[in-house]
């Protein structure tokens, strides 16, 4: 299949969901069951994406990315800048091809699942149109070959996220959550936008490859390495918003107000991962300092969210914090240079986290929209398919061997371990490995409380029953995708699998050597020794050696920690050897801190939100009483003066027509009589003023 065919296919894939959206939103009321059209669109998109992936991974697996671009805006030849155009285009490499399948398949499964979950909703059709516009926007992010288009679709996923979080807008909490999500994201987007402005100002293009090429050629933004670092961090701010990283993570838990399938699609598997995808796209231009910031933010976020997840009682909230934590992992992986594993975790996480959310949706529906796990229990018998698929995903996310999560998590932890051994930043692996225990613990806590033991709410339990096939089949599909064999033949080594060794290569860094980590510097000897050209530039032999040495320690710690977390959960919740309530009481300060999410919402509310609203009120007061007060005051003074001069005219100046009287009369006329609305006055005023001016301006 030729490159241009692939490009055309990818453009068709991009357009299918937006056609679906348009048809469904405009004809939703006229045609019965029009939502099937949207489902068909996304189904076709999935098939086409699979074809692209297959072709890409067979024919083009080592080939350069396939790029297609066209001129969107043409400014013509400009002084200093030369011919300036703004181009849009697509870039299909292995990563984009894989992402397309991830997005379209999860989207398709969610479309199917929603047939059951959203059944009977009064805005059922509109729901499907929103899914369409989301899929379109997300595919745009995946396919773009430039930053502007990424920003455009970035905002559009923000819109669809807003619409879907607030889908049940009758609830204030839902409307609030949508608004919060959009605004929090905008904070990050401002940073991203500034990064884009810096790049455009310096390179006059938005295209990734052209920018990278210039940087590689030694042309740094504003000729300074510090600006290059700043640009990287600013762009990363976009990811901080979209991927819910500290300090902008607060929107994602609230986003759970949206329908659960939406949480699975947007707020777990795809959109939130867009931030990580973006970091992957800009990876070649990230300096050591920028990478370190990214690694620390990611590491801290994963820790922060995991400590919150262990005490939450809302099934979706636990999963939301888990998502934040896992996204932190991916971000951290990118930061420590474990690029391939970061993306690997994105893919594995997409399946099992979508599965967890859809599973929780199945539970929630069975429990008649109960989300509090303290009301559940014993559901294993009632919901066997949901239980076993949910358990599969739990094993995957906890990092148990034979499941996909183990491979990717182990790989990225290995990356942090090697990174720390080379740079001394031990905090990062400490975060990473601590989170392994916490993850295994809170996930099994969730499984045990929800599915094991005795039912806590007998009435709801008795009414519970397994979900229909449209809901369980997607669960089964996702569960199958959560095993190791999709990525590697050896369940203990992701490294030797085709995903890491063949499909995803760490790209060349274009940053000047002096701005890179020591271990990422390119050396002549290194280039000569290693076969794989892709790895030469980014990773020195030093790094490869460190990776090699860290391999077994990292894997052993990771498996042990996961086991420890699971064991703790069993001890406390299954075997009840320790009373969790007593624990909470004894460490009540810690418990409350975790339960209240480290008080971030309260903090932001009290500072930023209240501050902005307060400033608005103060300025509105200022506007009404000071700015406008001056205007009205001036008018008042002028009126008084004019009244006075009117009196003066009448009583002091005796009818002699001299200039003074004429002038004050003019003031009186102009400012007092105008209010009567007499047109003639105005005309006289204009003519007279011209005459006066002619007199004044007469050349001498």
């Amino acid at each position, binding site marked *: 299949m030729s490159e241009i065919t692939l490009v055309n296919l990818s453009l068709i894939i991009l357009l299918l969901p937006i056609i679906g959206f348009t048809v469904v939103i405009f004809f939703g009321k006229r045609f019965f069951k029009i939502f099937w059209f949207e489902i068909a669109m996304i189904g076709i998109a999935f098939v086409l994406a699979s074809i692209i992936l297959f072709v890409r991974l067979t024919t083009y697996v080592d080939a350069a990315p396939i790029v297609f671009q066209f001129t969107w*805006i043409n*400014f013509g030849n400009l002084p200093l800048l030369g011919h300036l155009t703004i181009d849009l285009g697509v870039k299909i490499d292995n990563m984009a091809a894989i992402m397309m399948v991830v997005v379209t398949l999860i989207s398709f499964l969610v479309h199917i699942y929603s047939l059951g979950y959203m059944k009977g909703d009064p805005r059922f059709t509109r729901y499907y149109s929103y899914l369409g516009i989301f899929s379109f926007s997300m595919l745009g992010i995946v396919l773009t070959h430039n930053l502007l288009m990424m920003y455009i679709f970035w905002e559009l996923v923000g819109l669809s996220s807003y619409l879907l979080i*607030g889908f049940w807008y*009758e609830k204030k909490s839902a409307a*609030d959550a949508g608004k919060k999500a959009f605004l929090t994201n905008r*904070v990050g987007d*401002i940073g991203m936008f500034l990064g884009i402005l810096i790049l455009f100002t310096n390179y006059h293009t938005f295209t990734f490859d052209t920018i990278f090429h210039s940087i590689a050629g030694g042309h740094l933004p504003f000729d300074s390495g510090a600006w290059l670092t700043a640009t990287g961090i600013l762009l990363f701010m976009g990811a901080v918003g979209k991927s819910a990283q500290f300090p902008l993570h607060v929107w994602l838990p609230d986003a759970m107000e949206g329908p659960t399938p939406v949480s699975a699609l947007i707020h777990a598997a795809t959109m939130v991962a867009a931030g990580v995808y973006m970091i992957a796209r800009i990876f070649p231009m990230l300096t050591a300092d920028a990478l370190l910031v990214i690694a620390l933010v990611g590491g801290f976020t994963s820790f922060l969210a995991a400590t919150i997840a262990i005490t939450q009682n809302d099934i979706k909230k636990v999963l939301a914090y888990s998502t934040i934590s896992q996204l932190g992992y991916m971000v951290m992986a990118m930061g420590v240079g474990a690029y391939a594993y970061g993306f690997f975790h994105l893919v594995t996480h997409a399946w099992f986290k979508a599965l967890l959310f859809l599973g929780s949706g199945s539970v929630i529906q069975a429990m008649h929209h109960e989300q509090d796990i303290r009301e559940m229990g014993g559901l294993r018998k009632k919901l066997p398919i949901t239980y076993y698929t949910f358990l599969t995903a739990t094993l995957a996310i906890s990092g148990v061997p034979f499941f996909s999560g183990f491979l990717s998590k182990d790989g990225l932890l290995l990356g942090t371990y090697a990174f720390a051994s080379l740079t001394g930043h031990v905090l990062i692996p400490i975060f990473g490995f601590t989170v392994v225990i916490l993850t295994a613990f809170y996930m099994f806590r969730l499984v045990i409380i929800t599915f094991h033991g005795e039912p806590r709410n007998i009435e709801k339990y008795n009414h519970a029953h397994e979900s229909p096939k449209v809901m369980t089949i997607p669960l089964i599909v996702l569960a199958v995708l959560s095993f190791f064999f999709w990525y590697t033949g050896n369940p203990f080594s992701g490294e030797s699998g085709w995903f890491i060794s063949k499909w995803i290569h760490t790209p060349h860094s274009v940053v000047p050597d002096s701005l890179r980590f020591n271990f990422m510097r390119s050396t002549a000897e290194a280039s000569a020794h290693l076969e794989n050209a892709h790895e030469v530039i980014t990773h020195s032999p030093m790094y490869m050696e460190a990776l090699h040495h860290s391999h077994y320690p990292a894997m052993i710690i990771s498996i042990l920690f996961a086991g420890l977390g699971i064991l703790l959960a069993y001890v406390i919740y299954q075997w009840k050897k320790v009373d969790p309530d007593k624990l909470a009481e004894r460490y009540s300060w810690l418990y409350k801190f975790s339960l209240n999410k480290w008080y971030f919402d309260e903090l932001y509310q009290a500072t930023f939100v209240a501050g902005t609203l307060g400033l608005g009120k103060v300025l509105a007061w200022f*506007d009404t009483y000071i700015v406008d007060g001056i205007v009205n005051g001036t008018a008042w003074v002028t009126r008084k003066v004019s009244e006075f001069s009117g009196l003066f005219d009448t009583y002091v100046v005796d009818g002699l027509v001299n200039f003074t009287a004429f002038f004050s009369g003019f003031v009186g006329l102009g*400012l007092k009589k105008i209010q009567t609305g007499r047109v003639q006055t105005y005309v006289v005023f204009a003519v007279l003023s011209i005459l006066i001016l002619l007199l004044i301006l007469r*050349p001498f």
Partner: protein
Amino acid sequence: MDGFPILSLITFLPIVGLVIVLSLPKEKAQTVRITTLVITSIQVILAVILLANYNYGLAGINDPNSFQFVEKFRWIEIPGISWIGTIKIDYFLGVDGLSMPMVLLTALITFIATLSSWKIDKSVKGYFALFLLLDTAMMGVFVSLDFFLFYVFWELMLLPMYFLIGIWGGPRKEYAAIKFFIYTLVGSVFMLLVMIGLYFSTKEILPDGSSAYTFNMLAMMNPHNYVSTGILSPLNPSNLRFIAYIALFAGFAIKIPMFPFHTWLPDAHVEAPTPISVILAGVLLKMGTYGILRISFPIFPNITRELMWYIALFGMINIIYGALVALAQKDFKKLIAYSSVSHMGYVLLGMASLTSVGINGAVFQMFNHGTITAMLFLSVGVIYDRAHTRGIYEFGGLANQMPVYTGFVTVAFFAAIGLPSMSGFISEAMVFLGSFGTEVIRTLAIISTLGILLGAAYMLWTLQRIFFGKLNEKWANLPDLDLREYVMLVPLAIVVIFLGIYPSAMLNIMNTSVKHLVDFLAVNAHHISTTISAL
């Protein structure tokens, strides 16, 4: 199109309508409405014809030969009065890439505003007569190339506007109308002063070889045309030229409106009837920024260059201040009015960059703000017509009651927020690209990006307060949009989305001229500065 006075036609067609309307008997209100609608529809058609015959490659700005659809003849000629000499004033019309988008905008907005005026039934005849007069004045401002003519149209606009607010307005209409009138008049006085100063400083070479004072804007742009002793000649060592620039700028700034001259706007909007608000925000505000680009910049290129930081500063203040004040508003219409203050700030910021991308962005933003704000004010009108209140907090839950209306408002709001795929995004992004790229005003551009966040904050909050949540039982009978309202909103929504996806359709019209303007400013600013320093 050679020789056919299409610009005069598009400008004075409403006067024909005015005559017809005035000659109709008072009782035939519907005929009056239809007449106006027909006139404004023809205007739209004429605008489309103009666009179809428009040559995208011609620059205009200061070159009379590359203006299009030019009409020029001697209008007023008063034989010599002592020192003044012969007064010769031309009737000089033409369009280039700066005015063409404004002509299109004026035609479109006036047409929409006519539809929006349908429900006005207080002295219909008078209303539409004034409305048509306003139409002529606005169109005239955008096609005049003679300063005197420009000034005449500029002043002509005041009159109908004053009465349209003062008679058909809300409870405090008299206050709002007089405030608008006097405020704008103050601006006009400044403009008049500068105009006359320029007149006595510029001499145009006439075909017969003699020279005469002129009001021709294009002649004023050429430093060689200045009389060396002229009061506003670049060669005049006094700083009068600087003062003149400030005065002229203030005149235009009041119209934009620029902080701190903006307080007439919320009052005028709140009191004005919906269609007048639509015209006020959609077209009139653009006259301020248009005047700056058409007159201030090319006539005073060196001073523009010196003051660009201040222009950008006021742009920034407008953006942030307008947004913050909007955040605190409880009246839907007032909120939209302050959002206009904020959005016009982008125009100032973009033009201050003095780059091609930035000024393109500014002109595009002028057009986009026109269409988007028109949608916003129409939306306010829709709800006000039904509920007779505009208090944001009095609503809630309208989304289920009026789903189609909600859809349109959502589109308008997100367009105002600058969502990609809508036109506002392109122009705002270009404004930022241009202003960030200009080192002098970079910091101001960075601070202004906060407007992106604040804009989203007040818009989404308003959307939530009016449309989401539980429906107030009081509004359980509000009907959704009717056909007329559809016809008003659909074209605007189409334009907004179309230009968001294919911005080149508009950018190509203005690009050649803007590019030329930027070159012209750079060259002339340099030329004048060196001439002055050589003195």
